[in-house]
């Protein structure tokens, strides 16, 4: 029994190590193919990425990525492929910005109100896909991605002068939030950290606790592993699908909040888009684990921070995008390889044990 544990530990470390080595090797080959020195690139990245202002930048950048990965992971754990996180957070942030821009309440009321509006809008948007799946059997892959386009169109309609937006130079944006709605920051040198970091850590913990320590989380994971088994075990699968889509959408609603409450204070034509898709990559990278996804989000921030610096050393701008893709592929492949190897190892062990037992009984039969 003890030996099996040791194997398990080795296999557990093997996967990430294999992924990192493979990703480094492939990236190096690609950089070499462009006629540049990969080692110098890594040194530049490590040096620039460890500067104090880079650390702050990376963490601030990672917060929305992490929230996005959590939103995606809730669906993943149940075999739901919510690729509509992008539309969910944008429409959530938009209506939260509209509500926030229209009110002037004290901060302790207004900030929670804005966040709650965002979570509600996000979950309604995701819930549409959940309902369509359970009542009409439409795949959530199709509905969520189409809802992305619809969200963009709805925002585009309202984000015009005279509707819900004001014109500011060449930009349209919702009216600015009052100063009371600005989220707190954590004072660090040389630049402050986004206070939403705290919320991200809390949401990460809630995610872990809900999935691993509650009846609901157990049901959710069971449905993810086998719908029919869960149904036989008395789980209402349809309700689970809708609920988890609602939760995924609510988490998605948080993604835009660090930007809305801490950077832009309005939703404008320049509001960041595409974080919902980055979240899919990070959820894959972090294997849906709250700590793994945090590491993935920070890695993403690191790569984006240091990518610009590579451009100054005459590396191609695209190299960072290539690295990100290679890393995700390597992680997915490495874990699958190690899982299969572990499975084979286990089968062989069980086979040996059975064979030994069979030999023993055979001997006993012969001698009797």
């Amino acid at each position, binding site marked *: 029994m003890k030996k099996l544990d040791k194997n398990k530990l080795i296999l557990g470390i093997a996967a990430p190590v294999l992924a990192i080595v493979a990703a480094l090797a492939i990236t190096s080959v690609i950089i070499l193919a462009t006629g540049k020195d990969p080692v110098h690139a890594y040194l530049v990245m490590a040096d620039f990425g460890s*500067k*104090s202002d880079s650390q702050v930048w990376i963490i601030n950048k990672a917060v929305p990525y992490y929230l996005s990965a959590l939103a995606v992971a809730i669906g993943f754990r149940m075999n739901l492929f919510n690729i509509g996180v992008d539309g969910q957070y944008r429409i959530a942030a938009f209506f939260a910005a509209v509500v926030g821009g229209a009110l002037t309440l004290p901060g302790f009321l207004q900030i929670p109100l804005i966040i709650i509006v965002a979570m509600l809008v996000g979950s309604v948007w995701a819930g549409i896909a959940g309902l369509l799946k359970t009542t009409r059997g439409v795949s959530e892959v199709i509905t969520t991605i189409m809802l992305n386009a619809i969200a963009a169109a709805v925002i585009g309609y309202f984000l015009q002068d005279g509707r819900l937006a004001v*014109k500011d130079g*060449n930009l349209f944006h919702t009216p600015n939030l009052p100063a009371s709605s600005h989220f707190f920051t954590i004072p660090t040198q040389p630049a402050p950290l986004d206070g939403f970091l705290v919320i991200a850590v809390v949401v990460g913990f809630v995610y872990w606790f809900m999935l691993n320590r509650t009846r609901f989380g157990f049901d959710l994971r069971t449905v993810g592993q086998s719908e029919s088994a869960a149904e036989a075990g008395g789980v209402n699968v349809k309700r689970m699908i809708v609920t988890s889509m609602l939760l995924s959408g609510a988490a998605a609603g948080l993604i835009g909040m660090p930007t809305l409450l801490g950077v832009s204070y309005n939703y404008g034509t320049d509001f*960041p888009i595409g974080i919902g898709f980055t979240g899919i990559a990070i959820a894959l990278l972090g294997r849906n684990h709250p700590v793994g996804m945090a590491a993935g989000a920070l890695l993403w921030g690191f790569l984006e921070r240091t990518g610009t610096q590579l451009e*100054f050393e005459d590396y191609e701008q695209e190299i960072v995008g290539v690295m990100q893709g290679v890393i995700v592929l390597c992680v997915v492949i490495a874990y699958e390889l190690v899982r299969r190897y572990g499975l084979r190892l286990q089968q062989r062990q069980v086979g040996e044990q059975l064979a030994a037992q069979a030999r023993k009984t055979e001997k006993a039969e012969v001698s009797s």
Partner: protein
Amino acid sequence: MHRVSKIVAAGIATAALTLSLSACGESSTESGGKDKGVGLAFDVGGRDDHSFNEAAARGVDKAEKDLGVKSKMMTAKNGETEADREQRLSSLAEAGFNPVIGVGFNYGKSVNKVAKQFPKTTFGVVDSPSQAKNVYGMVFAEHEGSYLAGVAAALKSKTHKVGFIGGVNNALIQKFQAGFEQGVKDTDSKAKVTSEYLYANDDKGFNDPAAAKGKAKGMLDAGIDVIYTAAGQSGNGSIETVAGKKGTWAIGVDSDQYLQPGLAKYKSSILTSVMKNVDVAVYDLVKSVHDKKPLTGNKAYTLKDDGVRLSTSGGFIDDIQAKIDAAKKKIASGQVKVNDTPGKQ
């Protein structure tokens, strides 16, 4: 055991986060460089968009040739945040580039913010106003240039149906739409203008030629025979589609697209281009910094002083040049006022 290990893992993660709170080590801004020339930060689409960015690049190329300055050009990715843009600009300033120029209104906020951290560097921003004392804001009267495109389109259309394709439905591109529509209406009251946008609010609209192809195809099928596209690199798709149908015209934007080597195959279908003299503006700024008299504040490049104009390459509008000149005179004298927001339809 299982539970304990997870708690430990969570603890380590928290500790790691707290450690980085006291962000240690030297800041990247503490190590800097000397005068390196022009730092140019492009909007999406990059230098070779044959349109907007390329106009800015031409200005820098001219400065390299005439003044002997060096340059560094960087390009934005789709879906960037303020933090990405701020980093690009401050990296350029940090490395010693002066002036640092953001090409496109997306840089409006970030240029003005970063400029305050680098008071000794001159910054420039195209399509957005200056809000800091070391920033030169270059804005253009796109609606006035587009008005003339509307005049040309109305005069050249045989079906009396003309089209406008915008990359992204934002306030800037609406200026192009408003001017174009007004120019068409003032010239040919029977003409019908169809205005459509590729994206409501995704800057992908400026580098998605396939989407522009689809829109242009739809317009041609509806009998529209002159299409004006204001969509950066996406416009290439629309020009290509228009070139595939005989007797139809494309109107280019920002650069003189007739002269673009990348579009040479389609140039016989490019009626004219609404040129924004971004190259002149950028060159002026670079030269002013080179001469140690950096430009600051806002400068509007209008039709009156040829800041925006119609290109005549190819000679396709020679026959209507007199009417275009008449329209230009009316705008320059203030007799015609061009709207910068589209009317309600």
